[in-house]
Structures are given as structure tokens and as C-alpha cells.
């Protein structure tokens, strides 16, 4: 089963840690993701440019609207992603817990939905949205 691990951290806090810290963190990420790719666990992934470079696109009534910035301002920002293959959630949690920025921010682990499969027949959110 495929899981997407979304890496979040505070860009401001990362800035404060300075360049040396940044360089060694990046090296650590290179070596971790390199190992995961070699063993076939990581299918795809990348780091992202800061949210200052983000552009949000919406279409309403056929009109395209483009705005500067991410869709919502948050304390932690999306910084990168790992698409992995894992047996189950415990397996995915093990992989995610070793992603180096997990020590500073957080990793959201989401199972991937197959848009050609069963889940395309019925909107799946009803159960989760009822309170």
C-alpha cells in the first residue's frame, strides 16, 4: 500500500537554527531518502521551495483566480514529501519517524487513494465528517 508522508516544519524556526544546521540536515535527508529509494521503499519525493514561492490557483464559475501564498497560513509549512510503499500503517510510521525533519516539525502520513478503484464510486467523507 502507498502512503504519502508530508513533511511540515516552521520555516522561521529553521531559519533561526542557521546555515550549518541546515547543511547537515540536508545531508541527512539525502542519505535517508537515497537509502529508501535503493531499497524500493521510496517511490518518489522531493523537498519544496519555501512557501513564499507558493501560488494558489482556484477556478470558480469558470474563472481562474490566482493568489499569492499557500491556501492557508499555518505555524508549520509544507516542506517536502515522500511517497512510500509500506505493508501497513505501522510500517509507514517506522519510515516516517526516521525522516530527519520529524525531529523539528511533523510528518503527516496519509494512505493514497486509488482513483480507479472502489473509492471512486462513492464520496468517502461522510463517515469522517459526521460528529
Amino acid at each position, binding site marked *: *500500500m502507498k502512503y504519502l508522508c508530508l513533511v511540515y516544519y516552521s520555516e522561521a524556526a529553521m531559519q533561526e537554527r542557521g546555515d550549518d544546521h541546515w547543511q547537515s540536515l540536508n545531508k541527512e535527508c539525502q542519505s535517508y531518502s537515497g537509502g529508501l529509494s535503493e531499497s524500493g521503499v521510496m517511490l518518489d519525493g522531493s523537498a519544496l521551495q519555501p512557501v513564499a514561492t507558493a501560488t494558489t490557483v482556484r477556478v470558480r464559475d469558470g474563472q481562474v483566480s490566482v493568489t499569492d501564498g499557500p491556501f492557508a497560513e499555518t505555524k508549520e509549512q509544507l516542506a517536502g514529501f515522500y511517497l512510500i510503499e509500506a*505493508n*501497513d*500503517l*505501522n*510500517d509507514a*510510521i517506522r519510515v516516517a519517524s526516521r525522516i530527519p525533519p520529524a525531529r523539528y516539525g511533523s510528518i503527516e*502520513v496519509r*494512505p493514497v487513494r486509488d482513483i480507479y478503484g*472502489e473509492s471512486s464510486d462513492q464520496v*468517502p467523507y461522510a*463517515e*469522517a465528517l*459526521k*460528529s
Partner: protein
Amino acid sequence: MDGTAFTREVDALFARESRRVLATLIRLLGDFDLAEDALQEAFMAALRQWPEEGIPDNARAWLVSTGRFKAIDQLRRRARYDQILHQQAEQLTARSVVEMEVENVGIEDDRLRLIFTCCHPGLAQEAQVALTLREVCGLTTEEIARAFLKKPSTVAQRIVRAKAKIRDARIPYEVPEGDDLFERLQAVLQVIYLVFNEGYLASSGEQLLRHDLSEEAIRLAELVLALLPRPEPEAKGLLALMLLHHARRATRTTTGGELVLLEQQDRSLWDREEIARADELVRSALLTQRFGPYTLQAAIAAVHALAPSSDATDWAEIVGLYDLLLTMMPSPIVALNRAVAVAMRDGPQAGLQALEPLMEDATLRDYHLAHAARADMHRRLGQREPARSAYQAALDRATQPAEQRFLRQRLAELG
């Protein structure tokens, strides 16, 4: 065997086996809802067949395999409309031949798998509690709702949502191994303690004590301890802690529902058997040197439980245990309890000195028992005005009717 005796035996057998059979069916079928339906169907088949054929020698295995075949039938019926279900049914049929022989061996492991799955940290804690009580303990949704003063529809929704996450995010049906086991056990123990506390001291509502949930939590802790691959000290510690609280259940309130403080409780009514059992558990947990906060809290409760009176309590030992607990669990509540123990060891003046700096903490400023403790120290020093204002502060923050009545009583006694 006459009809009534037969029915009684079957009822007892169902009560004894239903959670075990369910745990194994969940593993075999890979789906909570399918397994629950299968369990019902297996019981219904037993009620039809056993009166004529007699109860089979291995009733548990009979129920598991009947349940599984019923589930396969059900999938096949539904499969007329769905190719995926058809494949699922065929896979299950192919696997059943091989697994028939091993299923009796793994049945206790399945119960532990079920516990760890229900208490998975990927589920919201309220959902962990509800799911554990429903699936592991066999409580109905209505019973859980009543115990937690929630609407049945809210509890049902939580359970449905938790099962959906288990399925969609693929939370595995397994007992964690190695270091993971220790970490995940903490989540299991926390669920058990939440259940116990909900039964022991409801934070709101009229009835102060709800024994059923407390006893359910003790049973659950016994089960976990019996099933774990090695006896984890903290599982022993938690069981001991709950037994020690439970041993005092008859003396915590008057028949009229009023609170009775530890120092005024009738110690001759404490359950000595439970205390002895807990003491043994605490000792063996402490010996391992791998104990944690539950064991230390149990050790403190054991010192209280074994003392002949409040005055004859070894307060120095209790302060020492709190010091150790504070290093493991630095929380303002633990620090508050330590200050109260200091007041007992060295007198109320020393207690106030330990307590005052703690009141800077926002949690304690909002906590009625912190104000009540301070009021009590002032009272013992004969300082009426500070005692009165602290009791009033406690009363303003207390939410439970019995505690409010107790604090009003104290205020009235000050004159």
C-alpha cells in the same frame, strides 16, 4: 441434560468465548464488521444445531470455523454484484484449509492483537477507549454511552469512524515487537487507566462512584498482563495501582454519597486481599528496575494502604517516592501531592512553603484540589481567614456535587 441446564451452559459458553472468537475472526477475515456479523451468525447456528447434535468438544474452534464459513457465504452473496468481494471470498476459502489447524494455537495472541489494534495511537484517544470497551470487553454501545455520559449515537459514530480508519489507513492486526512493544503498551495502559478513572471518579454527573467501569479496567489489566509475551513491570504497576484504589471503594463515600478523606476512612473495611495482591505486584515491578510512573504511584498507594492509621503512615517514604516520581513525570499535580506529603511529614508550615511556589503554575491555579490543600494547611495552622478564602477558591472551581458539598461543609466548620 434438560432444556434449562443446556441453555445455561450455552449462555455461559458464549459469554466466555465470544471475545476470543471475535478476535480470531477479525484476524481471519481482516474486517471488524464482517467478523461481528460472522460471530452473530455462528452463535445463531450453534443455537439451531447444538440442541440436537450436542455441544462440540472444541466449541471455540467450531464457532470460529462456522463464523468464517458464514462470512464467506455472505461475501459470495454480495459478490454477485461485486468482483472484488468475489476475489476476497475465494481467497478466504483457499486460506481456510491451511489455517484450520493453527487457529486454536494462536487464539490468545489474537486477543492481544485486538487490544493493540483498538489502542493504536493512530486512533483518537476517545475512539481507542470506546473501541476497546466495545470489541475487547464486549460492552454494548449503549452501555459505553451511559458510562461516559454521552449520547449512544456519538459513541457509535466514534466506533464507526475508528473502524474506517483501521481499514483505510491499514492499521495492522499485530502485537508490536521489540522497542515498539514498550512504547505501544503505554497507549494500552493509558486507555485502561482512563476507563478505570471514569468509573472511579466521574468528573461530572450525580453518581460519584461507578464500579462497573473500574472493575472492567481491572479485568482488562489482568488480561493484558496474562497475555503479554513478557511480564512488563508497568502493566503490573498499573494493575496494582487500580487494585489499591479499588480496595478502598467501600470507604471513600458515606452511604449518603458524601466524600470521606483518606485519614477518616475506616481502614478495617479495606479489602485486605486486594491490597496484599497489589503489594506483591508492586514489589515485583520495583525489583525489575525497569518500572515507571504507574509502579511508583502504586508504591505510594501501597504505603498508605498498609499503614494502620493516617498518623502511623510512613510519610518520609511517601515524600521519597514522590521525589522519584517527579523526576520521571514532572507534572504540577505530582508536585502538589508531594507538597501535601511534606505537610504530613514536617508539618503544615513546611507544606505551605513547598506549595506556595507551585501556585504560580496556571494548571494548579485552576485546580480545585490545589486550593483545597492550601486551605487545609492554613486550617491546621489555625489561620482562619486564609483558610476561608482558599476553601472558597476551591469551591469556585469544583464541578462535582459531592466535592462541592464537602467544601461547603469545611467552610461552615471554620465558623
